[in-house]
């Protein structure tokens, strides 16, 4: 019996040690416990400072969770800006917004300005995720795809799967929208960058409320089980925009 209890004890000690270095572990665990008590089967998303959270309107406490991170947005509204126009800048690789402020016209890059902004925000969003949760999600993904596909994901952060229904090939990527690809004309064409997250996501980042691999599992299962709904529920980003993550 002693040999059975040791690994479990070792795992508990390791987890406790790991969580000592993660300043958000306490809040994450508390939200998880509250979620269990209130029977929120998918848990409660963690609000983060400076990263507004968009929660699915049907999810319990959606308004309360979103209002916790709206302070900075409210501050922006107080400044009296009026949007006059907007255009795409190939040089800046972003949408430039023409605004009127105190009688003067200014051109400002839309937020996020480019990939770097989006990347930095995604690093910020990573505070919400735990290593233990990501490891469990990886184990689940390992049961859903073949070995070589799982290896692709572990080593490159992405993998391909073709839908039998539509013939569209999907490139599932960690912390990036899934790319829908077509090779019918002989060369690979990007149909759309499909971005969606279960429950919630952090605005201006590629991060969702769930850990990165859970988002990938959600995309994969939606594609396999109901491809039409996957397209319908996802935002379809233009491949050239920063949000597409290409």
């Amino acid at each position, binding site marked *: 019996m002693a040999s059975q209890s040791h690994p479990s004890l070792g795992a508990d000690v390791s987890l406790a040690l790991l969580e000592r270095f993660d300043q958000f572990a306490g809040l994450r665990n508390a939200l998880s416990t509250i979620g269990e008590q209130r029977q929120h089967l998918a848990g409660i998303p963690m609000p983060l400072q400076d990263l507004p959270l968009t929660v699915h309107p049907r999810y319990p406490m959606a308004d309360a969770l979103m209002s916790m991170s709206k302070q900075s947005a409210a501050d922006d509204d107080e400044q009296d800006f009026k949007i006059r126009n907007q255009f795409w800048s190939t040089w800046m690789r972003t949408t430039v917004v023409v605004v009127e402020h105190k009688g003067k016209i200014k051109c400002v890059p839309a937020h996020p300005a480019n990939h770097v902004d989006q990347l930095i925000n995604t690093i910020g969003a990573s505070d919400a995720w735990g290593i233990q949760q990501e490891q469990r999600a990886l184990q689940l993904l390992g049961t859903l795809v073949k070995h070589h596909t799982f290896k692709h994901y572990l080593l490159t952060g992405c993998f391909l799967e073709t839908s039998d229904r539509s013939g569209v090939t999907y490139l599932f990527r960690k912390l990036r929208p899934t790319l829908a690809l077509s090779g019918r004309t002989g060369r690979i064409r990007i149909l759309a960058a499909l971005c969606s997250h279960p429950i919630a996501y952090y605005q201006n980042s590629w991060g969702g*409320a769930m850990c990165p691999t859970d988002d990938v599992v959600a995309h994969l299962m939606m594609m396999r089980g109901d491809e039409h709904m996957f397209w319908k529920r996802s935002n379809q980003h233009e491949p050239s925009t920063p949000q597409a993550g290409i």
Partner: protein
Amino acid sequence: MSTGQLGILNVGAGDTKISFDPSKPAEVERACAVVMDMIRRGYAIMVQVGERDGKPLYMRAESFDPATAEYIVVGLPETNVAAAEPKLRNPETNEPDDDDKAQEAEEASPPKRKGRGRRIAARSTHGVAVAPISGG
């Protein structure tokens, strides 16, 4: 086949699993209540309904029967083939026959489609439940 399991993607836990082990009726009863609750809350439940060319074939469960612990799946390939058969028309009026009219009316009303779904026993299949999705 191993006991049927349903993985639920979870923010705080990575994923949690519920199982439908026939030897544990109380656990199955609780699992059925959880699945019913998820369907009511708009979760997408993807269950394996078979295999095609050696690859697992998944479909979204439209409904669930807690009395028999079965997922109800609509729109399997066999159903689509049957629905694609040409309809007979009355040669004088060029209108569909009465039976076909009734069938068309039945197809036009989505709630009735649930009754024609294929039932998949939860004890013998695996699946993943995804919480309501927002476009990012």
